[in-house]
C-alpha cells in the first residue's frame, strides 16, 4: 500500500495535530444499492427516452480505440447529431466506452471511474480485446473478458472497429435503453460481491475502498 494511504498523524497549517486515515476519511464505505425505476411506467418511458437520446460519454481513452473517438467528434461522423457528447468528468457522464484492451493498471482506474458515475450508467466494450483478449490473449497484463469486471451492455467487435461500427453500436445501445433493459448499474449492485471478487483477483495491490462513491 502506498505511503500516502496509510493511517497517520498530520499537522495542520494552524498547528493542530489530527489523525488521518485516508481510506476511511475520504470515502464512504457504503456499497451500491439497487435503484428502482420511476413510479409509473409512462414516466420511466419518458426518462428512458431522454437517457437514450442524451448519451454523455466519459472522456477516458483507455486503449487504442480512443483514436477513433476523435473522428466521431468531427465533421465526417459527427456523433453530436445523435445526442452523444463527451464529458471530462465521470460524475457527469453515463456511458463508459472501454476503448480496447485494459491493462490491470488501467482496470483499477476504470473501476474507480465507473463507480463514480451516476446511475443508470452504461458500458460499451470496444474492440475484440474487450471480448476475449483479442490480439493480447496471452498477455500477462491485459484482462480477457470485460464482463467479468463490469456489467457490459454492448460489445462492438473489430480491431479496431470503424467509426460507423461505433455509431451502429450506439444506436443498438439506445434501443436497449429505450426498452428499459440497460440496467447495468443495478446488475452491478446486485452482483457486487462477484464483481469485487473478480476485480480483486487481478488487481494485486487493492488500495482503495470497496466502493468509490
Amino acid at each position, binding site marked *: 500500500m502506498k505511503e500516502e494511504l496509510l493511517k497517520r498523524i*498530520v*499537522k*495542520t*497549517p494552524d498547528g493542530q495535530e489530527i489523525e488521518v486515515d485516508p481510506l476511511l476519511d475520504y470515502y464512504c464505505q457504503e456499497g451500491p444499492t439497487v435503484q428502482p425505476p420511476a413510479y409509473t411506467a409512462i414516466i420511466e418511458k419518458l426518462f428512458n427516452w431522454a437517457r437514450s437520446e442524451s448519451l454523455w460519454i*466519459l*472522456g*477516458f*481513452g*483507455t*486503449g*487504442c480505440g*480512443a*483514436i*477513433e473517438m*476523435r*473522428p466521431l*467528434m*468531427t*465533421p*465526417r461522423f459527427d456523433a453530436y447529431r445523435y445526442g452523444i457528447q463527451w464529458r*471530462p468528468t*465521470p460524475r457527469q457522464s453515463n456511458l463508459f466506452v472501454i476503448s480496447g*484492451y485494459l*491493462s490491470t*493498471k*488501467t482496470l483499477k*482506474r476504470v473501476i474507480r*471511474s465507473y463507480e463514480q458515475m451516476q446511475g443508470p450508467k452504461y458500458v460499451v466494450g470496444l474492440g475484440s480485446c474487450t471480448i476475449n483478449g483479442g*490480439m*493480447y490473449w*496471452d*498477455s*500477462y*497484463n*491485459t484482462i480477457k473478458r470485460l464482463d467479468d469486471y463490469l456489467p457490459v451492455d454492448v460489445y462492438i467487435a473489430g*480491431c*479496431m472497429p*470503424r467509426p460507423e461500427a461505433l455509431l451502429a453500436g450506439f444506436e443498438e445501445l439506445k434501443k436497449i435503453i429505450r426498452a428499459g433493459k440497460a440496467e447495468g448499474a443495478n446488475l452491478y449492485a446486485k452482483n457486487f460481491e462477484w464483481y469485487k471478487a473478480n476485480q480483486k483477483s487481478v488487481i494485486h495491490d487493492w488500495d482503495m475502498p470497496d466502493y468509490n462513491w
Partner: protein
Amino acid sequence: MFELDRSQYPQKKPDGTLDIDLSSGKYLKLWQGPQHPGITGNMAIELTVCGDEVVEGKTHVGYLHRGFEKLMERRTFMQCFPIVCRICVPEPDFNEYCYAAAVEELAGLEVPEMANWIRTLILEMGRINSYLMYLGGQAGALGLGVIGQWTTYVRDLMLDRFEELTGARIYHMFILPGGVRDRLPEGFAGRMEKALQEIESTLGDVEKVMFHNAVFKKRTVGVGVIEAGWVDSYGITGPNARAAGVAKDVRKDQPYLVYPELDFELVTGKDSDIYARADVRRRDLLLSVDLIRQILAKMPKTGEVMAKLPNVLHWKIPRGETYVRGECSRGEYGYYLVTDGSGYPRRVNVRGPSYTHSIALFERMVINANISDVAALLVSLHTYPPEIER
C-alpha cells in the same frame, strides 16, 4: 506583477529531493490523468503545485502496457508482423517498417525496389496523419477547438487513401518482412492529389487562425523552451530537437528506403518554444505533402512488391543483433532486434521517441511552469503513451 517569492520553499533535502510537506498547506498535489482531457492518451502526470506554479512533476506510465516485447518472443517472425503495428496507435506504420527492416537485415533479404517506394509513401502518409492530429491537439489544449475539427476532417481524407490502399483505417498491416502486401490501386495518384490539395488549403486556414492568432502567440511564444544543452542529455530527437536548432533528421543523416532519391530540405526552427515546435511540425507536414507528390511522380510503374520468402512457418534467422531506425513524426523510432538462430525473436526492444520526451524531458520542463500551460506543454512534445510502455 504576479511574481511569487520562491526563495524560501521548497527546500532541498540532503539527498537532493525536494522537501515537500503536503500538510503544510503550501502545496497542492494534483493528478492529471489518466482520466483527464488534457492528457495525450492514457497516461498520468502527478503535479505538486505551489500557487499556480508547478514545483515538481512526475510522469506515470504503464496504463497501456501489453507486454509486446514479451509477446513477440512467443511468436514466429511472421506472426509478430500483425501485432507490431499495435504498439503505436496514431502512427503504426513505423513499427511495421522498423520491424520488417530489422528482420530483413538479419535474414539477409533483399527488398524489391517497388516495395521500397510504396513503403516510403505509406510512411509519409502516416506522418501527415500524425501531424494533423498533433495540430488539432495543440490548438485544442489551448482552447481552440475548431482547429481540431478541421484537421481531423482532412485526416479522414488521408485515412480514406489508407483504406483504399491497405483496407484499414488505423492498423494497416501493410509493410511486412520482405516487402509490402500489394501495389497501388488504379487511379490512386489522382485521388491522392485531391486529398493533398484539400490538406494544403486547410493548412492555409490553420495558419491564419492558429499561427497568426495573437492569443495563441501570447500563450505559446517563449513558453516551454528546450535549452540546447538538453538535446543530448535527454535524448531529444525529431521536431523537438529541430525546433531547438539541431538539424537532425534520420531521413537525411542515415537515409533509408528511397529518401536518397527524393529532393528535400530539413525543416528547422530556432526559438524552441511551443510556438516554434508547432511551426516546425506544420512546415514538416507541408514537406511531407511535397514528398508524397515526388514519390508518386518518381516511382516505377511496375515491379515486384514482395521478395521471395522462405517457408514462414519454419523461418529461422541466424544469430545476430541489429538496430534499425526511422524518422517518425515524433523523432527517432527504432527497433533493436536480437535473434538466436531459432524461429522466434530472442528480444525485441522498441525505442519510441516519446520514451525520453514524455518522462525525463517533460519532468524537467514542467518545473516552474504554470498549471495552465502543463497540457499545452505536454502536447507540444508530441508524445504517444503506447510507445512508451509498449
